[in-house]
C-alpha cells in the first residue's frame, strides 16, 4: 500500500512538471509583448529595451522557464503585470471567497445528489426515476449564465430581494451577525447557479455507479442468503458506493478552488474565477501561470487524496497494492 501511494506521488510530481512546461510554453509562445502595457507609451525606446532586458523578455524561452521554475519552487510566482502586486498575494486574497462560495455549492450539491442518485438507481426505469431524469435534463439544458441572468432579473431587479453583485454591500459598514447575513444574501444566487450544475452531474454519476452496484454479481447471492432489501442496499451497496462518492468528492476539490469563471463574472464575485478571467484577457502572464500552477497542484493533490482514501475503503487496493 505504501509503495502504491509512493508511486502515485511520484507520478504526480512528474505530471506537475509536465503541466508547467506545457502551460509555460503555451503562455509564452503567444505573440505580442505583455509587458508593453507596464510602461508609459511615451517611454523612450532605449529605456524600454533596458526594462525588457531586465525583465528577461529577451532570454531564450528555456532559460526563462528555468528562472521561473527556480522561483516558483520557492513559492515566488513574481508580480502581476496588471495589478502590480505579488501573484501569491493576489491569489491568497481571492481564494477565500472562491472556496467559501464553491464549498457551500458543492456541499449542497453532493448532499442532494447522493440520496437522489441512490433513489433513482433503486427505482431505475420507474416513474420516479424518469421524473428525476427529466428534471436533470431540464437543468442541464439551461445554460448557467442564462439561469443566472433570470435569477438576477427576478430577485434583484423585479423583487429587489437580493443584491445583484459583489460579496458585501459597499459602504453599509455592517458588523457582526449583520455582516454575515449580508455575505449570505450575496451568496444565495451564485451558490444556487453553481450548485444546480454540479448537482446534475453528481446525480447522474451516482445513479449509474449505484446502478452498476445493484446489478453486480454479489447482489443476487446476498438475497439468496436471506438478507432483505434494506440490508442489501444500506450495508452492502452503500459500503461499495464509498469509492465512487470519494471519486466525485476529490474531483470536486480543484473546481472548488478554480472558481466558476462565468458565475463569478456575472455576479462580480471577487474570487479566483474572476481573477483568472481578467488575467487571461489582459495577458497577465505571471498571474495566469501562478493560478494555473496552483490549480494543477490542487488537482493532483485531490487525485492523491482520492488514492489515499481508496486504500481505506477498498481492501483490494489496501492489501494488494494494485489499483
Amino acid at each position, binding site marked *: 500500500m505504501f509503495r502504491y501511494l509512493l508511486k502515485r506521488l511520484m507520478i504526480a510530481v512528474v505530471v506537475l512538471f509536465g503541466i508547467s512546461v506545457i502551460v509555460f510554453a503555451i503562455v509564452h509562445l503567444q505573440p505580442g509583448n505583455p509587458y508593453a502595457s507596464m510602461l508609459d507609451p511615451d517611454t523612450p525606446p532605449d529605456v524600454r529595451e533596458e526594462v525588457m532586458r531586465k525583465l528577461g523578455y529577451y532570454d531564450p524561452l528555456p532559460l526563462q522557464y528555468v528562472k521561473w521554475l527556480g522561483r516558483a519552487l520557492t513559492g515566488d510566482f513574481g508580480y502581476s503585470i496588471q495589478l502590480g502586486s505579488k501573484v501569491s498575494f493576489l491569489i491568497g486574497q481571492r481564494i477565500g471567497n472562491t472556496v467559501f462560495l464553491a464549498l457551500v455549492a458543492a456541499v449542497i450539491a453532493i448532499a442532494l445528489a447522493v440520496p437522489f442518485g441512490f433513489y433513482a438507481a433503486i427505482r431505475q426505469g420507474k416513474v420516479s426515476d424518469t421524473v428525476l431524469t427529466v428534471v436533470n435534463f431540464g437543468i442541464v439544458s439551461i445554460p448557467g449564465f442564462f439561469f443566472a441572468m433570470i435569477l438576477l432579473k427576478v430577485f434583484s431587479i423585479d423583487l429587489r430581494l437580493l443584491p445583484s453583485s459583489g460579496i458585501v454591500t459597499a459602504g453599509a459598514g455592517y458588523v457582526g451577525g449583520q455582516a454575515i447575513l449580508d455575505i449570505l444574501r450575496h451568496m444565495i444566487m451564485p451558490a444556487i447557479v453553481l450548485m444546480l450544475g454540479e448537482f446534475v452531474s453528481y446525480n447522474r454519476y451516482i445513479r449509474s455507479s449505484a446502478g452498476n452496484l445493484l446489478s453486480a454479481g454479489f447482489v*443476487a447471492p446476498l*438475497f439468496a*442468503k436471506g438478507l432483505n432489501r434494506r440490508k442489501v442496499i444500506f450495508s452492502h451497496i452503500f459500503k461499495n458506493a464509498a469509492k465512487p462518492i470519494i471519486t466525485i468528492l476529490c474531483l470536486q476539490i480543484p473546481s472548488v478552488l478554480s472558481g466558476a469563471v462565468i458565475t463569478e463574472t456575472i455576479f462580480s464575485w471577487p474570487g479566483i474565477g474572476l481573477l483568472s478571467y481578467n488575467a487571461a484577457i489582459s495577458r497577465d502572464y505571471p498571474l495566469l501561470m501562478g493560478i494555473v500552477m496552483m490549480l494543477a497542484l490542487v488537482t493532483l493533490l485531490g487525485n492523491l487524496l482520492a488514492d489515499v482514501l481508496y486504500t481505506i475503503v477498498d481492501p483490494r487496493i489496501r492489501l494488494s497494492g494494485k489499483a
Partner: protein
Amino acid sequence: MSDGKLENAETVLEVNHLAVTFTGKETVHAVRDFSFTVHKGEVVAIVGESGSGKSVSAMSLLGLLPRNAVVSGDVKLDGKPLDVSYLSPEIRKIRGRQVSMIFQDPLDSLDPVFTVGEQIAEAVRVNDPKADKATVTARVIDLLKSVELPEPDTLRRKYPHQLSGGQQQRILIAIALAGRPRILLADEPTTALDVTVQQGILDLLHQISRSEGVGVLIITHDMGVVADIADQVVVVRNGALVEAGETVRLFHYPQNDYTRELLDAVPKTPLLGGSLGSDHAAAVVSATGATSAPAPAASDEQPVLKVENLSVSYAPRTPDVVHGVSFDINHHEVLALVGESGSGKSTIVRCVLGLAQQTGGTVMVDGVEYLKQRRREQTKTRHKIGVIFQSPMGSLDPRQTLAQSIAEPLIYALGVPRGDALAKAEELMDRVHLTRDMATRYPSEISGGQRQRVSIARAIALNPELLIADEPTSALDVSVQKDVIALFRELQRDLGFACLFVSHDLPLVASFCHKVVVLQHGQEVEYGPVESVFVHPTTDYARKLILSAPLADPEVQHERRRLREQAATA
C-alpha cells in the same frame, strides 16, 4: 450407496409444471414445463445446454428473477406448497434458511469490501438474529471447518480477493450452509474453477448431501460432473423436461434421442478410461490402436514449430512466468498444451505470436527464429500462422460482415483484390460448412458455433502451416463443440497444418491430439505422445491432473471417489 435407501428417503423438494415467462417487448418462454423431485441427502443434476432454462428454473425457486419474469408452477418444499410468484413473502422467508444457493463465479458472488468472516456471520444472523457475537463467531468457525478450510480463525479475517477460487467457492458453500438448509442449489459451481480444484468442491458437495442430509440440486452442462456427483439426472431442453432418471441408468440406457446426443457429444477416449491403475487403459490402447487420428509417422523433416527452452515474462524486467519449455510440432500433428489456469498455456501462445516478452530459448517456425527476424521477413513468417481465439464474439469485428472478416487476411497479407478476396471468402465458408447466404451477415446475427466457424475460416484463409487454437471450444455447448472439433479434424486432414491446441479439457485433448505438454506454474511437467502421458504419467502432478478430469462415466467416477475416500481414511 444403494438405490433402495434413496427411495425411502423423504422428498424435500417437488417441482411440477414449472414455467417461467419473461414479459416485455418480446415474450420469452424460458421455462415451459419442468418437473423434478429432490430427496433428502440426494444429489440431483439438471443438465442442459445454454438457453435451456436450467439456471432460470433454479433462480425462480428463490425468487431471484427480475420483475418481468412470470413464474408459475406447483412447488412443494417439505411437503408444503410454496408460492413462487414474484415477491412472494414465503419465498423471502425460505431464502438462506430452507433453500440456499451457490453461484458460478465465486469471486463475483462475494462482496469485495467485507471480510469473508463478516459475510458468513451475516448469514448466521439471518437465521439467528438474537445470537451474541461470540456465538456467531463460533458458528462461523464451525462452518469454515465444515467446508474443510484450513486455519479458520485467520481465514475469516481475509477479504475475498485474498483467497483462491476454490477457497472462495467453499466460503460461498459455508454461507449457504449457515441456515442449515434443506436444499442447496448449485448453479454451475465448478465451471469457473480448475479441474484439480473442481474435484474438491464436488467431493465437498457430495459429502454435504450425505452427512448433512441436504438435497443438492446441481446445474451443469458438464456430463463429467454429472457422472461424478449426481444420483439422479434431469435433462432439460428449451425449457422443458426431456428425460429424468437414475444416473447410471441414464448414462447407459438413455431413452430420449436428445439425451443420447448430449452423451455422444462428450469426447470419448479409451485413454482416460481407467481408474487409478492405468493397465485397463493401456490394454485398450494396444487393442484399439491408440487415438482416433493416427499419429503421423516420425520423419526427418524439420518441425513446423520448434520451441526450445523457452522462457517468457509478461513485460520487460518482470519475473519469468514460463520457464524453459520445449516441444515441437510436425506437419499433420496436433500438440496440446494443458494445465490449470495460470500455468502459462496462453502465455506460451502469446509468445509464439510475438505478443509476450521472450526472455530465453528459441521459437522456430519452419526452421527460422522468426521473432528475431527483421520486420518485413517476420511478417512473411507470420502469414504462415493462423490463430483461433477462445471467444469468437470477441475476435470478430462486429461491424464487418462474415465475408469481410474472412477476406481480411487475404486482402492485407496477400494483397488480393477486394472482389476476389470476398469470392475466396465464400469458398472458405464452404470449407467450414457455412452456407454462402450468410456471407453478408454480421457476427451478432449468428450463433456461437457459427462464429467460431467464421474464426476458423479466417484462420485458414492463408493456408497456414501452423494453426494456433487457444481454447477454441470452451465457450461452446458440448453438442456444438463436437461439430467444431469434427470440422477441425477434417480441415487438419485436408490441409495438413501443424496445430498448437490449448485446452483444459483433457478428454477432448485425449481424443483429438497427438502430443501433449503438461504445464504447472510455467514449468513443463511432462511432454510426450498423448497415449504415453495419459496412460503412464510419470509425475504426480500429471497423474493428479488427469484423474481430476471427471469422465462422463458414472462407474469410473464412483470408483475414483471410493478410492479417494479410502485413501483419505487410511
